[in-house]
């Protein structure tokens, strides 16, 4: 059983109003030295496959579902 973590983040240059909202909230909290916040997604996926097959499948998952590759990048961590 392979355990994978997939991180989906916004591509550089894509406007992130959510990130901005969080940034302002952090400032209100008193953290005046925060210069940027970007919000992303995190998936924990358990898959019954060999590491090679798992990598292949996870790549397809990232490309087609987990990330919208027009505006997001994804990174896979296995094991």
């Amino acid at each position, binding site marked *: 059983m392979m355990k994978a973590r997939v991180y989906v983040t916004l591509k550089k240059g*894509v*406007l992130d*109003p*959510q990130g901005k*909202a969080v940034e302002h909230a952090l400032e209100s909290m008193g953290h005046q030295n925060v210069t940027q916040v970007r919000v992303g997604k995190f998936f924990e996926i358990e898959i019954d496959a060999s590491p090679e097959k798992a990598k292949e499948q996870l790549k397809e998952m990232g490309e087609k*579902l*987990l990330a*919208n590759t*027009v*505006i997001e990048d994804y990174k896979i961590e296995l094991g």
Partner: protein
Amino acid sequence: MHFSIIVFPGSNCDQDCHYLVKDLLGQKASFVWHKEKLLPKTDCVILPGGFSYGDYLRCGAIARFSPIMQDIVKFAEAGGKVMGICNGFQILTEAHLLPGVLLRNKNLNFICKNIFLKVSSQKTPFTQALALNSVLQMPIAHMEGNYFIEAEGLEELQQNSQIVFRYSDEKGDFTAESNPNGALENIAGICNKKGNVLGLMPHPERIAETLLGGRDGKLLFESLTDL
């Protein structure tokens, strides 16, 4: 004409679309459940508004993999007419039947109000009979209507007259105030290169008779059925 109105779990504008097409325009219409593998014999597919799959993951990201979508892609690639309204537009971009993406509204609010749209292309059968640069009034109701596409894609849309509707003010001017959600170039609706697939964020089915406050929405369907 026959219209197929696709129903996903969470779609909520299907009934209004059906009413417009069948009761107001006297056309044939069927609801098609998203689990069906094949469309019936049909002239136009409507992907209605709503919250398919609760907008989980991303709006339309999961609906894109519903069984019926395979036949809809085939239908569209063969030139069949498809109209995606609001969530339907989001599903069309996720399915890559239309380019670009609908992001969260710039001000992070769900916006529900009447807006003005300028008809910017007559390339689609839905706007063929409408006067270019005419201004229509329609309601919007969405959280993720902020249309975005990278620079190259935008150039293509512009060169191929694929930008069909743009938010404007009552006079047809593209002002910042007239843009409710931060959409690039005030884009409210686009079509594919061939012009047979249209996606728009506003709801024509909610402004199709005087009782609802206006009839501009009906014009898009009359343009189609007058062919």
